[in-house]
Structures are given as C-alpha cells and as structure tokens.
C-alpha cells in the first residue's frame, strides 16, 4: 500500500489523479446530455439556437472561465512544488524507469509488443487513425449536438479506444508498475527482487511446432489469416445483408475501417493472449516478431 500511495502522491502524478476524476465527470456529463437529447422532441442545442450578442454573453463566460483556471493554477503552484531530483547521472539507472505519464500507455504496451510496434507503429496508427475519423464515419446524423442513439457504433468505438485502452493503460503504467516493470496491486509492497518466472511461449510452441521455419510460416498464416478473414467475412456479410450501406461506404472506406478495427482488436487480443496463456509472439521471423 505504501508504495502505491507514494505513486499517487508524487507531484508529477497528481495530474493523473485529477484526470481520472475529470474524465469520469465529463463522460457522465456528455452521456447525460446525449440521453436527454435522445429522449426529447427538440435537442437542447436546437432549443437554444437563437442568435445572441457575443458581448457580453460569450465574453463573460470566457472571462469567468479564465479566472477560475488561473486561480486553480495559482493555488496548485503555491501548494505543490515541481519535482527536482538528483542531477542527471547516466550511470545510475532508476528502477523502474518511467516515461512521462502521458506516454505510459505506450510504455505499458511494451509488455505485450516489441518496441517497433508499441513505440513507433502504434503511435503512428493512432495519429493517422484519429485524422481518418471524419472521412470514414459517413453517418450524417449527430453533427453538432450530443446524441447517443444516432451514432452508437462511433461512440462505442471512440470510448473504447480512448477511455478503456488509452486511459486505463496509462493508469496501470503509472500506479501499478513497479521495479522491473512488474505489476503490483495497490496493497502489495514493491519488491525490488521480485522475479516473475519467464514462462512465456510463442503461439507456435503451444501447437508443438519446434522447427523455426515451420513456426515462422505458421505464425504468418495466423497473422495474415486474422487480417484476411477479418476483412473478407464482414465484407461478404455486408454484401449480402446491407448492400446499400456498403455502397454508400465504398471500398476504400471499408478497407480503412476494417484495418483500423482489426488493429485495435489485435492489440486487445494480444494482451489477452499474454495475460491468459503467456503468449510472447504470434509470428516469429528473422526480421521482426509480432
């Protein structure tokens, strides 16, 4: 417990404690407004869409908001000092070494993926995927007001990626990872000598494949098969059940959407495989491992 509290009370981690409450607060607020809008005849935004003078109606809100934020910052800056540890010393590695908190979700992913995926490919995909959202979400409804009913899938996807994956991984990486990047429950002591038996196996070994080349081919089939089947099956289903929808969507959109979904769920699948079956790699090759 003591080490957990130490983490919570670290000045640099206070923002994350705040973030947890802020995220809950704003999520509840957003969904409350969405449900209220879904229930009523006219959305709140629609009912309030008459024009008003910016001065004073908007400017006064900005003024009050600015004062509140400045007050908060002033009190925070008086009450809590920014950390300054010992001078930089390249020969003294702290254990654990942690990146700044906003990158700990990615550092957490290092447990499940090699650095080229966790540190380079996934961040790039996140940035590109975020930028792609307006072009792949072709649902015309729910533009400019809170609603859940009119865009359920989009909201589920975003909340899953942002709240469940990004925020949860950050919290885990910040508060629950101790020496050796081992996982410690809040009530556990941080034991520097904790050794977790490395019983991780590759997926091929689970299937008793010993030969490297065969394992490599096997992994390739599984990985590419996941993406291939994951792309083709829903396409077939759409073609049969929702041909109109598929037509509006178009092929480029379909492939972008399906690859992004497959990658997002791929991350989740790999995490689950590691946690339950201690799978290290699904696909080994001489050049990269996944």
């Amino acid at each position, binding site marked *: 417990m003591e080490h957990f509290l130490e983490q919570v009370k670290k000045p640099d981690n206070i923002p994350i404690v705040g973030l947890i409450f802020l995220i809950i607060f704003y999520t509840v607020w957003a969904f409350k407004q969405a449900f209220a809008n879904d229930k009523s005849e006219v959305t709140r935004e629609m009912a309030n869409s008459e024009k008003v003078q910016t001065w004073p109606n908007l400017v006064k809100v900005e003024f009050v908001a600015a004062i509140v934020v400045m007050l908060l910052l002033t009190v925070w800056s008086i009450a809590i000092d920014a950390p300054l540890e010992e001078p930089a010393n390249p020969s003294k590695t702290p254990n654990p070494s942690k990146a700044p908190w906003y990158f700990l979700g990615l550092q957490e992913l290092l447990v499940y993926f090699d650095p080229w995926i966790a540190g380079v490919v996934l961040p790039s995909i996140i940035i590109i995927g975020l930028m792609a959202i*307006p072009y792949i979400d072709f649902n015309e409804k729910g533009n400019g007001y809170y609603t859940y009913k009119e865009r359920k899938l989009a909201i589920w996807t975003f909340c899953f990626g942002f709240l469940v994956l990004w925020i949860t991984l950050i919290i885990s990486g910040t508060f629950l990872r101790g020496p050796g990047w081992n996982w410690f429950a809040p009530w556990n002591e941080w034991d520097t000598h904790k050794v977790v038996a490395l019983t991780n196996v590759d997926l091929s070994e689970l299937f008793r494949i010993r030969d490297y080349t065969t394992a490599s081919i096997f992994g390739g089939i599984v990985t590419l098969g996941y993406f291939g089947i994951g792309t083709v099956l829903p396409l077939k289903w759409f073609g049969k059940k929702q041909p109109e929808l598929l037509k509006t969507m178009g092929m480029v959109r379909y492939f972008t959407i399906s690859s992004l979904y497959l990658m997002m769920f791929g991350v989740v699948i790999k995490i689950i495989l590691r946690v339950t079956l201690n799978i290290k790699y699904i696909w080994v090759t001489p050049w990269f491992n996944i």
Partner: protein
Amino acid sequence: MFNFSKVTKSQVWESVFRHPYEDTNRNRMLQILDNVFLHLHPTKIPRYATDVGFTWGMGGITFLLFLVLTVTGVLLMFYYRPTAEFAYDDMNYLQHDVPFGLFMRNMHRWAAHLMVITVWLHMFRVFMTGSYKPPREFNWGIGVILLTLTLLLSFTGYLLPWDQLAIWAVTVGTNMARATPILGHEGPLGPELGMRADNDVRFALLGGTVVGPAALMRFYVLHVIFLPIAISVFIAVHFWRVRKDGGISGPRPSDKKK
C-alpha cells in the same frame, strides 16, 4: 464633483476607444469588431455556443494554458542555460534565489500537464458532439496535429531540468526510436540497411548515442523555438477554420425530429 465625461470625451480617450459605451446593440457589436483579439469571435453567436455544457470551454482553456506557458516559459528562459554544465544549477538557483522563481517554474510545469489533459478533453467533447463531421473534417485533422505538438512540447520540456527524472524519462521515450522500422538500428530491416547506433534516426534526434549534452541542446531549441512557432501557426489555422467552417458546430434546421 469630477465630471467623468470630461475624460471620455477627451481626444486621448476617443483615440483609444473608437466607440461610445452606451449599452446598445451597435456598441456591443463594435466592442467585438474594434478589438483585434475579440475579433476572433463573430459579433453574434447561437445561444448554445455560450453554454458551458456544450463546449465545456475546453478549446479556450487549452489556448489560455498555452498563453500561460508562453509567459512563464519566457521568464524561465531568463535564468536557464541549456548545457549539461549549467542546466541543473540554474534550476536550483531559480528555485532558491530568484524571487518567485519556484512559483514560475511550478506554474509552467502544472500548466503543461494540465494542457495535455484539456487537449484530450477538448478532443473528447468534439467527438461526442460529432463536430468533426462535414464541413469540419479538415479542422479535426489540424486538431490532431495540435494534439501531437502539445505532447511533443511537453516531452521536450521534460528533459530540461537535467535531473534524474528528466534524463531517464527521456531515455525511455527515445529508446523507442531505436526500433523504428528501416530507420532504427534495432528495428525491423534496420540493420540490414546499414543502421547503426551512431547513424540511425535516434542518433539524429539526440545528436549522440545517449541522452547527453547534445540532446539537451536539441530538445531546448525544439522546445523554445521550433515547436512553439509550429503550434502557433497551427492554432491560427485552427481558429481561422472554426470561423470559416461556419462558427461553432450546431444542429441544422433539418435535424428537427418529425
């Protein structure tokens, strides 16, 4: 009794404030139009756009924090030298000997952390109101660039105190660059293409094979010149596009349920 209208009718006053202040709609409009900063806004907006429940004011708060960071950052620059020799001592001097130095440093750090949070919340709000939908697709993309720049600003600033926290956090972060496919010496196809620890993309980023004095200088220059200018340009485009895309998003008359 002092007659205040003597002042407000004076040449000096009238040269500063270009219109009278009686509470008329015309003057309220001029109040916005005649002011270069307030002129960011239209003179009239829909009522929901003034509703804290709708925007949460998050974009504006993010911008305010950026301004706070600019001011406190300039003050810190007066006392800080980005060399391995001086950086840490300057931090100590700043904290213990400069009047309000510690306060300035605290405010710079906490505003930076807070800005990361408010950018995320702003993005979350824009998503939840579906405000990225046409015609605002492009401005959402600009927003994603702003998000990336905000994180890079935070990250480059993290190294500057040159303490244990700083170099190890940045070491962990930049170690990932080793593994960049093709461009990193530990990344897929990197070694095959002749990448070594002393010529790959991480080397270019750090100016060396470890987080050393050269890295401190590079991060400093990125942190105080390049990234702030870049983010300012993108913020300008962002605000411009908010206006050009028709102001704050909102329901259209056709959204009325039958």
